[in-house]
């Protein structure tokens, strides 16, 4: 009896324990559900605020623009703000959709070849202006790269990198510092306990001295809808989904992430993702192996990186830090007939701007000498000034070997082509026809002599009126280009160009007209443009310049 009682008691005890355990589990589930619910509520509340903020901006700016519709600059300003707000809104929506796709298991990864150089360049275009806007010091370092062309999911890799670096910018105060390093290692995870293999691991290290995170928050950093919550961050826009998306994507890609952070001091994110190398395509690059390249750059580390790459390509390098030293070196090289195959101008020099040096070297070394700029600047913003100063090509930083070699190779090919053209060999513009309008017989003869070496068909006119008549009588698209002198009897070059442009025929607008004049006043350049000419070519005209115009204009036509 006593035994039965004891058995019953122990069974009850088991059942009670089970019930207690079940209750505890239920309580935990309830707590988790409530926690998730709290996070979702907080997310919804924050989202509704976050969505409302850009929507308010869009609506407000639209009504301001409508009420000042005649003031172009004001409307333009409003439209720019609307564009910023709507981009932000779109990002919010995209994050929510991404998270939903990941949570429902509908996310698939692609397997395609991509260029790491292109990707890093694109990311920098997004991130750099944001850092510049906050006056932050932003450093990007490219370490050892074994393979620039990889196979993987470029879209999601970009998303991961933009999220990590973008957060560093977002959560670092004005004038703060962000350091990003990108490199590769082969075959072994850098994280303990992972398997060894032969894949290429892409490493991204992102360090900042921003607001950092508490140890408590670090534990929840990858949970959806969580954000660092304090007075500083309440003004920072975001959904709290970014890191959850990053972690989910990394898990699917077989990658790893490690975060270290200290509140008030900054954060350090380290991610590592395995990729396969894309198969090598047949190389078409022709590098000037054994030749010297002059590097002009004040920063040793950057110059060293350029030099290392060039040495890998079999080239010799000379490094100088001053513009004056570079010009002295080139003058001596020219005198001794040992010119380098190119000048690589970096971001900065100790004594003067790189563009100023480029302008002088262009005069010193001639039109064909390759001057390449390797810099972090936004090329679109300086392109006009740089090409005017004589820069032949631009290689953006962060510097990748492939881009540097491609630029050099293209210039070498071009130089070879130009050499051939200068020698009158292998150049055949015989399918093109140009009209040379020049009243001076001597000048006409010289120009014909120079141009005929390219095989181009030349017709002449001795004044503007004859040129208009010749063009008018010819069938459409008969001429490909017109070289027009300005000072001529009967009808000058401006009037002739204007009359040609006004003719009622399709090619009147498109025919290329190049002014050839020694007149150098500001008015002359303005007048030739106003008369509808495409280019202003100053006299005395030399052969190389004429060939350059043919190359530029006729190749563009092709």
């Amino acid at each position, binding site marked *: 009896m006593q035994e039965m009682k004891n058995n019953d008691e122990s069974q009850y005890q088991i059942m009670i324990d089970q019930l207690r355990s079940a209750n505890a589990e239920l309580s935990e589930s309830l707590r988790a559900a409530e926690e998730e619910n709290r996070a979702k509520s907080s997310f919804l509340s924050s989202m509704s605020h976050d969505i409302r903020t850009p929507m308010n901006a869009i609506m407000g700016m639209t009504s301001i623009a409508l009420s000042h519709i*005649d*003031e*172009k*600059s*004001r409307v*333009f*300003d409003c439209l720019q703000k609307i564009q910023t707000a709507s981009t932000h809104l779109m990002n919010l929506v995209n994050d929510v959709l991404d998270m939903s796709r990941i949570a429902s298991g509908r996310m698939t990864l692609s397997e395609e070849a991509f260029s790491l150089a292109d990707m890093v360049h694109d990311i920098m275009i997004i991130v750099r202006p944001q850092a510049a806007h906050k006056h932050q010091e932003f450093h990007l370092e490219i370490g050892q790269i074994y393979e620039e062309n990889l196979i993987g999911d470029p879209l999601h890799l970009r998303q991961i990198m933009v999220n990590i670096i973008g957060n560093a910018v977002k959560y670092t105060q004005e004038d703060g510092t962000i350091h990003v390093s990108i490199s590769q290692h082969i075959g072994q995870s850098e994280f303990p306990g992972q398997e060894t293999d032969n894949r290429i691991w892409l490493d991204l290290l992102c360090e900042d001295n921003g607001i950092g995170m508490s140890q408590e928050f670090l534990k929840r950093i990858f949970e959806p809808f969580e954000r660092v919550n304090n007075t500083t961050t309440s003004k920072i826009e975001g959904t709290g989904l970014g890191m959850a998306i990053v972690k989910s994507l990394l898990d699917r890609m077989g990658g790893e992430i490690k975060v270290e952070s200290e509140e008030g001091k900054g954060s350090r994110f380290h991610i590592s993702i395995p990729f396969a190398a894309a198969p090598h395509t047949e190389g078409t690059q022709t590098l000037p192996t054994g030749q010297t390249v002059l590097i002009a750059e004040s920063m040793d580390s950057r110059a060293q990186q350029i030099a290392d790459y060039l040495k890998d390509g079999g080239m010799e390098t000379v490094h100088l830090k001053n*513009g*004056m030293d570079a*010009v*002295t070196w080139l*003058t*001596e090289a020219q*005198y001794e007939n040992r010119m380098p195959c190119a000048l690589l101008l970096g971001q900065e020099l*100790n*004594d*003067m*701007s790189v*563009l*100023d*040096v480029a*302008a*002088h070297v262009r*005069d*010193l070394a*001639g039109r064909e000498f390759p001057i390449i700029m390797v810099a972090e600047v936004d090329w679109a913003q300086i392109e006009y000034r740089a090409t005017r100063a004589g820069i032949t090509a631009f290689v953006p930083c962060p510097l990748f070997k492939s881009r540097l070699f491609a630029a050099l190779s293209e210039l070498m090919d071009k130089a070879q082509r130009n050499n051939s053209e200068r020698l009158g060999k292998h150049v055949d513009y015989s399918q093109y026809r140009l009209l040379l309008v020049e009243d*001076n017989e*001597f*000048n006409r003869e*010289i120009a014909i002599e120079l141009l005929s070496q390219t095989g181009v068909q030349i017709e002449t006119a001795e004044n503007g009126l004859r040129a208009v008549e010749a063009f008018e009588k010819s069938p459409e698209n008969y001429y490909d280009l017109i070289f027009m002198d300005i*000072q001529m009897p009967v009808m000058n070059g401006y009037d002739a160009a204007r009359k040609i442009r006004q003719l009622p025929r399709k090619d009147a607008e498109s025919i290329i007209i190049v002014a050839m*004049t*020694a*007149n*150098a*006043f*500001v*008015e*002359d*350049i*303005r*007048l030739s443009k106003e008369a509808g000419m495409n280019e202003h070519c100053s*006299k*005395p005209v*030399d052969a190389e310049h004429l060939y350059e115009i043919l190359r530029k204009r006729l190749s563009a036509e092709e």
Partner: protein
Amino acid sequence: MQPYQEEYIANLKDIAVLAARKYQNCHSFETYRETLLKNRSLIEAKVNRNIELLRNELFPLFDRLFEAEPNELEELEEFAKRLLDGKNELDGGLFCQIYQALLSHARHTKDCNAIIRCLYWLGIGRHNMCSKMVGLDLPDIEYYMSQMRLCFTEAAAYLKYYDDICDIETKGYILRSRANTALGQFKSASSKIHLTRQTLQLLQDEDFQQKTPELPWDRYIYMTHQQMISGISYNRENDMTAQDVTAIMESAHIVHKRQIQEAISNNEAPPMRSAFSCYAIEYYCGLLTLEDLLGRMEELMDLADTSSFSSDAMYTIISLPAIYCQYLREYPEQLSGREKYLESLYRKIIAYTDAFPENEANEQIFYFLRQLATTFIETAHSISYGEFQQIMLIHFAPDIYIHSQVVGKTAAAFCEIIMNEEPSFFDDIEYIRQISDPGTKRQAVLELAMNSGTFHDVGKINFISLFTRTARQWFEEEYEITYLHTVVGSTRLNACISTRHYAPAALGHHSWYDGSRGYPESYKRLECPYRQMVDVIGLIDWMDNSMNCAWLYGHTKKSFDEAVQEAIALERRRFSPLLTTRLRDKAVTEKLRQAFETARYDACYHLYQETIPHEKSPQKIIRL
């Protein structure tokens, strides 16, 4: 030289005389104005003739330069040297154009001697341009400094082949180029001193001297010592290393000793300039305190002979006070207790400038006054910076003075019309918005318009030869240099409290309303609270330029009605529609037409009063 070259130079000289406005024989304002208008049309005729000469003769030569005969190239070079001989400038811009062309020719023919010679002279031409940029921050003018320095650097690079080069003259150019690489501003004082020190070592190398004893080594070395000490006045003490200071000290001692010897042999007083150099370097190496240095400078300035117009007297009376002001700017705590002395210095300078003989060449006095304009300090009882600038304009740029007065008065008239219709039109300007009384607000706006107009072109003082002495259209490079007058003007006006409100108009009056064109890039219309006023000044300035000095820009002179029509055509692009819409109102344009005419007449009259001795009013400077 070719006849057209002689004629061009003769025209330049005539224009300089006509533009100098020495109308001592005009006994009434009517005669003065008549002479002024007659001279103006004479100037225009000569300018047009010069443009014609260049178009018909010089440019065709450039056209066929590679086939030109050697004697044509020699004549061209001779012509260039007459345009800028190192001391006097007749046409520095054309000088550069010619040497640029000659350098292209030399590079084309691979003539080493010619390349070196042309690089040297092109460097000199560019140095002449750079000298107009006094007071500008290096980043704004770095391009011009670099272009000058690189010409000298390339020529100096041939030093390595000194023995290969046979021509003695070319060897001289190489050495002079080497010395000139240290001309102009540098990012650090040490770089400049380091370069000069290297040049000195080279020039003192007996090996080089023995190779070419024909060259004036002593002169080269002495000039390099002078160049070394020229760095003192604008170098901060912490910029220089101990080695730099030693080098300057040695040079200062050598130059001072030589100048004293020369003064004794010429029976003259010891020169003040080198005395100051010695004091300055003693201060830099700690032998004198700043207090001591300023005291010594005061002693030198007090010794100046105000009846003399020698270079040394001008230096002591104007340039030394400018350096004195520079120290006080660097160390404002030293100003306390020196205000009255500074005010007396300014009075002495103005009296000296007024007494400057009309027939003397006034280049040197102008450069010294311009130096003072960049370091000027306002005190409670001193003349204001604005008044000082007016004196500069009246004396050295009367055309710019008249233009500025016209823009100021016409802008004020236009603002009056606007304020009657929209009293809050200028309320983006905080201090205007805060004025609640309508009458006071209106008065404040009109005063702002008048002074913004009066000072919008003060930056042109730096480029005076480009604006007032260019006897042809500008070349593209010159046009680009003139862009800097907006930055210079704004920087200067911003530096003094009394003129700070007028700086935005100086900066932005050449910008376009829609931001698509114009200059400078640093003016952001939408971010500037003064933009409505800047728009007004920009419009009136453009109209007056279109009607009066269109040739510089390569445009045809317009009548008032044509200018109004073109301004309307440029609505929303160059000009604010809020302003051009008012130009459609005939009553408004009539008022503006009258304002332009009256303002020009009044400015002329004021100039007549100020510059013709017998009619001078006791109150010489307009109080603003």
